[in-house]
């Protein structure tokens, strides 16, 4: 691991992850071992390597969605702040890190019954204390920018197409100004026009100083946004499966 500079926002330090499946006789499934890299403010780092190598697992560990078996995941909001180790954080601390430090765009939208697209997108702002009306207005602007038809804003996304859902999901993940931003295949089900919008949004976040870590299978998008690629194959314990 390289020495953290003052611009460093995220440090993944010798992180190891495996699963034990008790339903299949306690079979042990190692995923990654000793993953180490760092992301600076204003930098876009892309995780590379074939699918199944453990890229998504790493993102999930950084959001706190997966537990970290060994190692540290350090993050902070600003140059002069102390790092917090998410791997060792209590559930409450993880929730506050998600609110204030680490934002993310997941691969799939988890729709909530009866909650409209605009309300879903506004929610991260509401959690940060933005008044309902302002949050909703900003959510609608974000959805417009992603070319979601306005007729859909007030409908729950359960019945939306894959691309529409994905845009709601992106809007939900990008509406806030989290200093660390994780993107898991945000452009997977988008057409060229919307891919462009997402690339622009990423560029804006980068210019604002976000430390961005992503997974992009689309070569073209990857080439457009990535400053650096960290090849996860080097840390993967699933080499046989991935080969």
């Amino acid at each position, binding site marked *: 691991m390289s020495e953290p500079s003052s611009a460093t926002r995220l440090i993944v330090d010798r992180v190891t992850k495996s*699963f*034990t*499946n*008790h*339903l299949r006789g306690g079979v042990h499934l190692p995923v990654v071992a000793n993953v180490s890299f760092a992301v600076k403010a204003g930098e876009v780092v892309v995780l590379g390597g074939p699918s199944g190598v453990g890229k998504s697992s790493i993102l*999930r560990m950084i959001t*706190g*969605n*997966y*537990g970290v078996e060994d190692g540290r995941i350090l993050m902070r909001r600003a140059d002069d702040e102390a790092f917090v180790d998410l791997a060792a954080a209590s*559930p*409450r601390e*993880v*929730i*506050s890190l998600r*609110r204030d430090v680490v934002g993310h765009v997941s691969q799939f939208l988890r729709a*909530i*019954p*009866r*909650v409209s697209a605009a309300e879903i997108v506004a929610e991260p702002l*509401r959690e940060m204390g933005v008044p309902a009306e302002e949050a909703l207005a900003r959510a609608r602007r974000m959805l417009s920018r992603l070319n979601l038809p306005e007729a859909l804003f007030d409908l729950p996304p359960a019945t939306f197409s894959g691309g529409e859902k994905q845009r709601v999901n992106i809007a939900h993940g990008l509406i806030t100004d989290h200093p660390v931003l994780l993107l898991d295949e945000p452009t997977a089900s988008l057409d060229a026009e919307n891919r462009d919008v997402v690339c622009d949004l990423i560029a804006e976040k980068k210019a604002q100083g976000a430390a961005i870590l992503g997974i992009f299978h689309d070569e073209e998008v990857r080439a457009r946004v990535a400053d650096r690629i960290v090849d996860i194959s080097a840390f993967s314990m699933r080499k046989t499966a991935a080969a």
Partner: protein
Amino acid sequence: MTTDQPLLIAKGVTKHYGARTGCEDVSFELYPGEILAVVGESGSGKTTLLNGLSCRLPLTGGQVSYRMRDGTLRNLASLTEAERRFLMRTDWGFVHQNPADGLRMRVSAGANIGERMMAVGVRHYGRIRETADDWLTRVEINAGRIDENPASFSGGMRQRLQIARNLVSHPRLVFMDEPTGGLDVSVQARLLDLLRALVGEMGLSAILVTHDLAVARLLSHRMMVMKDGRVVETGLTDRVLDDPRHPYTQLLVASILEV
């Protein structure tokens, strides 16, 4: 969420029914604004735990402390009966699985909502009625039905009325025992959404007992998985569901039907 002092602290909470174990050595802290789901199958002790925490059942062992509105932390067992009952009808709510257990079925919807107000000494009919009206609207019951008895309401409406009846006193902690159990799926969705919105708006803390992991995922921040009266796994809700460690949790998660 980041208020520093816990609202409720459970230490070694244990309840035995004779030789049989209801729940054993359960400890946790609940913070203001936090929703804790207790999941497990029937007989796992989750309802016993809920009743023990909420003073509805005397404990065999352990201790539950609660931070009163004045900021002092009190051992619930040391409260007088009067203090305990006052707490239960002002600062706490209890939502039963069967709304008939939590409602007065023979008095009107308006009186069901107004009861807590009258219990703390509100003596102005017009004001009570206005509040009841407002709460009916908030829980999406036509205010025109304010004078009807809940006996004439559907299951979903009864459950929403029960919620209004509890929340009218602006409690800080709500205990919920399978609040969506026994309702049709579409009715469940409406109720969940309503609960989610109200809990968020009012900044409530809640302890939610459910066997439905989807309900736990939607409503709770944190989760405790119980089996045979003991907590086998605990943590952030989405982590317990997406990265379960304990064999029993893995079995539970693997048993969910995906749509």
